[in-house]
């Protein structure tokens, strides 16, 4: 019994880390642009595919070390996704900035469709699932009677390190301060001499890069990627962001783990739970939006824009 619970904890920490990385992106975009970037899930998917391409290239180049390849995957998918995210912002979201909610919403949905279909059409065999590269597939070690997977441990550590790095970036640096200022009040930030365009671009760099990392992590964990996997992750991601309070960066860091915990608990406790786990995630989404729209972590009377 005890072992199962440890196992569930490890599972939820792994996927929670992934959700958190995606959620941070959502919450950052919402903060600076008041936009729910539905295309973010597709950036996540692109991250996975970039990782796959890097792995293929690395094999061609004869790179042996699994760790190095994984490192390269992370770096390249961060770079590619950051650029894609910034391009999205420049060419799709900037023209509709300040428009009514509906317009921005439909724009982001449409951008998501474009990215997803582009991968499906132009990636070789894009419509089929692709086996992902993973050097440590079956490597695990025993801790007492608990079997732990190296990949999972690695992913948990990676996500914690990254989330902490984001925390430092947002809390301690000038760039982060500009981001927080813009989130709080775009006009006031502008009056204080912050170049809002650059801040928004930086935000998209950062958020999309994290999404890309999550895409690679997803591939390493499930060993298979598909062009349409982004959408599910987008829902989990913004549920996590909503749980933490949309626009609240620190909240999003915990939201991912909460969503993952709910999912794992539903699967563990409810018979046939795996069929209904997403239903519970969406119920969590609706419930939080209706009863605690500012997120679980913030005092309910504080109002968010």
């Amino acid at each position, binding site marked *: 019994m005890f072992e199962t619970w440890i196992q569930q904890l490890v599972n939820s920490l792994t996927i929670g880390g992934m959700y958190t990385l995606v959620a941070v992106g959502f919450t950052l975009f919402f903060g600076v642009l008041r936009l729910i970037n539905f295309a973010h899930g597709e950036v996540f998917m692109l991250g996975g595919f970039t990782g796959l391409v890097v792995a293929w290239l690395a094999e061609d180049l004869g790179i042996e070390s699994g760790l190095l390849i994984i490192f390269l995957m992370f770096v390249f998918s961060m770079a590619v996704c950051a650029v894609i995210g910034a391009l999205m912002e420049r060419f799709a979201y900037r023209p509709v900035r300040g428009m009514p909610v509906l317009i921005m919403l439909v724009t982001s949905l449409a951008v998501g469709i474009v990215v997803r279909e582009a991968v*499906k059409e132009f990636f070789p065999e894009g419509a089929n699932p692709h086996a992902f590269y993973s050097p440590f597939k079956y490597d695990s070690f025993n801790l007492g009677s608990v079997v732990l997977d190296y990949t999972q441990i690695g992913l948990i550590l990676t996500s914690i390190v990254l989330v902490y790095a984001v925390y430092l970036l947002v809390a301690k640096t000038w760039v982060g301060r500009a981001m927080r200022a813009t989130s709080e009040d775009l006009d006031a930030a502008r009056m204080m001499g912050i170049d809002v365009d650059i801040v928004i671009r930086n935000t998209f760099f950062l958020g999309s890069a994290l999404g890309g990392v999550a895409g690679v992590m997803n591939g390493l964990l499930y060993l298979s990627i598909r062009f349409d996997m982004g959408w599910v992750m987008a829902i989990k991601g913004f549920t996590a962001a909503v749980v933490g309070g949309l626009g609240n960066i620190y909240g999003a860091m915990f939201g991912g783990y909460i969503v993952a915990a709910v999912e794992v608990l539903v699967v563990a406790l409810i018979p046939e739970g795996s069929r209904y786990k997403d239903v519970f995630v969406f119920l969590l*989404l609706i419930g939080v*939006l209706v009863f605690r729209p500012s997120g679980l972590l913030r005092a309910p009377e504080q109002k968010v824009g």
Partner: protein
Amino acid sequence: MPEVDFIDTQVAREDTRTLAEKARDRLALGGCQVALFAAFLVGIALEDAILVTGFLLFIVAGAVGWGRMPKLNSWARNHLARDKRFAQLVLLALLVLFPFVFLDNPYLIHLGALAAIFAIMALGLNITLGFCGLLDVGFAVYFAAGAYASSQLAVIFDVSFWIGLPIGGLTAAFFGFLVAWPALRVSDHYLALVTLGYGLIMNLLHRNFTFLTHGTDGVINIPPPSIFGWDFVTPIEIGDLELPFQMNFYFLALIITVLTVFVSIRLRDSNLGRQWEAIREDEVAARCFGVNVRRLKIIAFSTGAFFGGIGGAVFAHMIGFVHPDNFVLLTSIMILAMVIIGGMGNIAGVVVGAVALTLIPERLREFEDLRMLLFGGALVLIMIYRPQGLFPNSRRRRELQAEKINTLIAESGRDDAEAPGLPDEVKV
């Protein structure tokens, strides 16, 4: 110069035209309509995807050119307004004629029926979104509710379509009522997320509640509607001429669409519609003037959903097969896009949007999956260059212009920037 708005400012003027002038005007108007309709027929009869693309580009170019000529625009609108009843009759006659043109191509008639069904649903969403301003990204829920309710009644209990149809609508209205409760407490982004989550939950339930929906097997063998023992799939024969049975569905859908348009117009101009409009414009102000916002929002959700359900019921009985894949998020996005592209709040525009978004993808079948890519790209471009839709509701058009100007003012960093060409009311 502030833009003169004909729809808002026009008062019923006495018709001073002589009989000859009237006849001339109507002839010209009817001629234009017939010409446009002929162009439309040519467009949907095109088989080759390249030709269709060319045709679409031609239309886009025409529309852009048309937009550049405000004088011609208002002149045309003026003429249309003067002979409105006549224009409506001509349009109706043309729509009735439509299937007779394609007697040897029943697939096109089928497409016409499908377009009419989606027009019903888009008009439903138009009530929620266009009239009351409530963002609903889960409209497929109501589509599904109507389709499942009426089809299962027919399959299991052998209930006639004519009873299943209103029950399907009411079931959908109930689902609209269900989401209205949480939706009342949130607005804007949060409302969009709530309805989105609702749509996703419902789609998962369609897949998993197999005792109600047969899950991913779908509901099969849905009987076609019948009337006095005559089945809708039996072709009508007039003399030697056998009319394709798709025509029966086309006329069924057309009649319901016309009814929906009629109800929409009456709703818009009713007390209810005015109150919805007030809520859409400013909820707080509406409440101050004694509008029961809560009640009206619930009514808006349910009424919109009702038409979604009606559309779903007709759809189920026409296709004869209902599957959860019909009711995914993409369906909701499609219906949403119909309303937005057509022009939110504008009934005629929404119908045009629905017809366009049903027919164009079908005619571009040769491009296969590339269609979706094109759809997404086109949607982005429309959002950027024409967010008010093709035929905007006049008030909404001004709103969006104002938002754009305000953004520009904010971007330029100068609050004192004059907004040229706009009335004072839009400056904040």
